């Protein structure tokens, strides 16, 4: 659990003061927990910059995402309309004013710094990890779908039925990602399995993760022929992703909601 959530921590302190009686009895427990916690070397915030001026909507990212993350195929029949599982799809926004440009954009989970889905999860199946990724632990999810209705971006998908892989299709599953069962919510993880792989390799080699090796790390970024998707550490001002995020064309989706997404878009630029 992230310790960086100031609002919640403040709330806790206030509540903690009012709780009173129970505190004394359990203070010892808290102290012992505190000792064991190890400080991370450096606080990362993984983020993504999607340059819409580069993006051509070729949709490779959406397919790469499905391939990497064992996202099940949900059929086209009427029953499955709206049951599609989309970690990353193309968001299409018609112009608000007549004569404006329509805008399409690769649309992964925004990994909000202040994520509405995380707040509402009753069991902690979804949470912000130390590196700013909104994770979903499939096994813990009870399927209440609260996170889905809380997410302003609609970037969470429910397994309306247990996914099936027909015949030999099962052989192409990525062994690094667990398949999900029916009745759980799933979402983009920034390809955490790949991040983990890179981190372990770096740790085994006794070095820090380099920006170079993560720029095209997530499956969507790796597949993008236009190199429109760049991944990296937003907390590191030197990283490519931070550099791009300083571009004046930057915008975040629904920034007025105060969610502070870690996915930063760069506006399309047309004559």
């Amino acid at each position, binding site marked *: 659990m992230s310790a960086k959530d100031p609002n919640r921590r403040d709330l806790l302190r206030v509540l903690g003061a009012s709780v009173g009686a*129970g505190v004394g009895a*359990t203070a010892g427990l808290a102290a012992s*927990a505190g000792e064991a916690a190890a400080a991370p070397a450096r606080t990362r915030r993984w983020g993504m910059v999607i340059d819409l001026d580069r993006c051509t909507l070729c949709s490779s990212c959406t397919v790469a995402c499905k391939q990497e993350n064992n996202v099940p195929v949900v059929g086209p029949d009427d029953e*499955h309309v709206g049951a599609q599982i989309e970690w990353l799809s193309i968001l299409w926004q018609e112009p608000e004013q007549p004569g404006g440009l329509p805008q399409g954009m690769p649309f992964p989970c925004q990994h909000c710094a202040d994520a509405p889905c995380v707040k509402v999860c*009753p069991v902690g199946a979804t949470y912000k990890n130390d590196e700013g990724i909104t994770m979903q632990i499939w096994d813990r999810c009870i399927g209440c779908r609260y996170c889905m*209705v809380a997410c302003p971006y609609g970037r969470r998908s429910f397994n309306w039925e247990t996914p099936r892989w027909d015949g030999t299709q099962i052989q192409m599953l990525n062994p690094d990602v667990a398949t999900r069962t*029916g009745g759980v919510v799933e979402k983009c993880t920034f390809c955490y399995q790949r991040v983990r792989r890179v981190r372990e390799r770096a740790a085994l080699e006794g070095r820090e993760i380099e920006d170079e090796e993560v720029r095209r790390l997530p499956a969507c970024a790796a597949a993008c022929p236009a190199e429109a998707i760049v991944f990296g550490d937003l907390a590191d001002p030197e990283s490519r992703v931070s550099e791009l995020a300083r571009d004046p064309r930057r915008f975040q989706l629904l920034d007025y*909601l105060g969610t502070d997404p870690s996915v930063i878009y760069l506006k399309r630029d047309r004559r």
Partner: protein
Amino acid sequence: MHAELRPELRPELRRVSPIWYLMVLVAAIAVGVGLYCYSVQLARGDIATGLRNPGNGGAAWGFYIVFYVYFVGVSFAGITVASLARVFHIDTLKPVTRLAELLTIVALGVGAMMVLADLGRPLDGLLKLPALARPSSPFYGTFTLVVSGYLFSSLVFFVLAGRYDAAAMAQTGPPLLRPLYRLWGAGFRDDDVAHTRHWRSSFVLAMTIMPLLIVAHSTLGFIFGIQAGRPGWFSALQAPAFVVMAGVSGTGALIVLAAIVRRLFRLEDRIPIAALRWLGNFLWVLAAVYLYFMIVEELTSTYAAPRADRRIAHEVVGGSFAISFWLTVGSLGLAFLIPFVMYLRRLTSVAWLVVAALLANVAAVLKRLLIVVPSQTHGGHLQLREGLYTPTWVEIGVVLGAAGLLVLGILLFGRIFPLVPTPVPEARRHAAVPREPLRVLATVTCALIAAGLIAFGLSDSFRMWSGDELDPRVPFSPAIFATGVILLFSSAIVYETFPARRRRATPRRVIRPPRARIHRVDVRAQLRSSRDPRVRRKS
């Protein structure tokens, strides 16, 4: 016991109307249908419902949540009526208090089932919610406060209030059920001290329950009201509106229930029209408040509202939800008008009152549908795909089954226990209660332990002791919190059922000389009589 009462006021199980059998049959069939539909849902997965991903053109929450909110709303009436009756000494309402509490309990149970029906993995939910629930999720309040606190306080209220009759029924009731009555009425002595104690404890309970009730129903409103990402939900009005709407539907349901029960159980003489009239007045007041809320809501969401809010308002008032919306407005208007006119004209027609009450419930269901669904299907801040939500027969069947269960529970209970409490004369509630330090100590201890559990359970639920980890430090903290809440209310049971010290020397102010039968009613004394020399001596 009860001999002092007029015969018609004694607790008894009356012969039921033949319609009772028909209704039980219908309700049982409904339950069967519900079970079948739910098994279909379990087998096929949630694809069997009409729910789909919001943003993909669907609604992730639909009928189940609508009826969950509805059932919990219905439960409002019971405990409110009981508390009001106690706190403000409204004797008119006394005959319907038990009915009201029963409605609360059954409706809450059924509501909890609706949540389970909604969960993608119900078994995981049953296990994980008590273990891991997080207070930052408005669901926490739902699962702990509503289910444990609200349900259990009602239960405690219900059980304590019923002891008087249970003790009596242990003597006169059907022999087969007497063990149940004896258990329920265990430790009850029909002396004025006991009545006085109950009178006091019920006041404390009632005073505790009323704020809890507001909190619990507000929690329900917060589930929707604090979601900034859902235009149409995000509103400070949500919590108070939920409380009021709960009142509307709950009062309506209680009116319908009382009217039906009067007929079915031939209780016309025990449930006076006056009680119904009182409820009718309560209904129009609440309906008027809610109508006001609706006007405020519509005004806010149409007058210079942001795009998304306006889109929803447009869709609700004139789009695909228009029929539901205008039905809601009409129903609610009539639910206000009918009892209001009756109030002005000083008339009371049970039939019209039932019509108004039914309309109030129709409005309650539809309004919840209008709250839950359009924000998901049409409420995107972004231009996500829009769609429609239509419940499938599976969902309708499950909800039907839940409603059947509600009816069945009440009908069956009516066959085994008197639905109208035996009135206790005012005078008997004001006896001098002897000082019993042990009883007070036990009660206070229980309450303190409860407070400790609540404090720890809540703080650990907040992960205050978890360091940087996600889980509570102690497993099942939310359950501990809920246990604390339950225990807190149980201290009332401790207070009332703590075995009385019977010392000869203690003078008791007794209005009527105790009879031998009273001691027979004292089950605990009876049980003990074989070994307690004092008791033997006494008899």
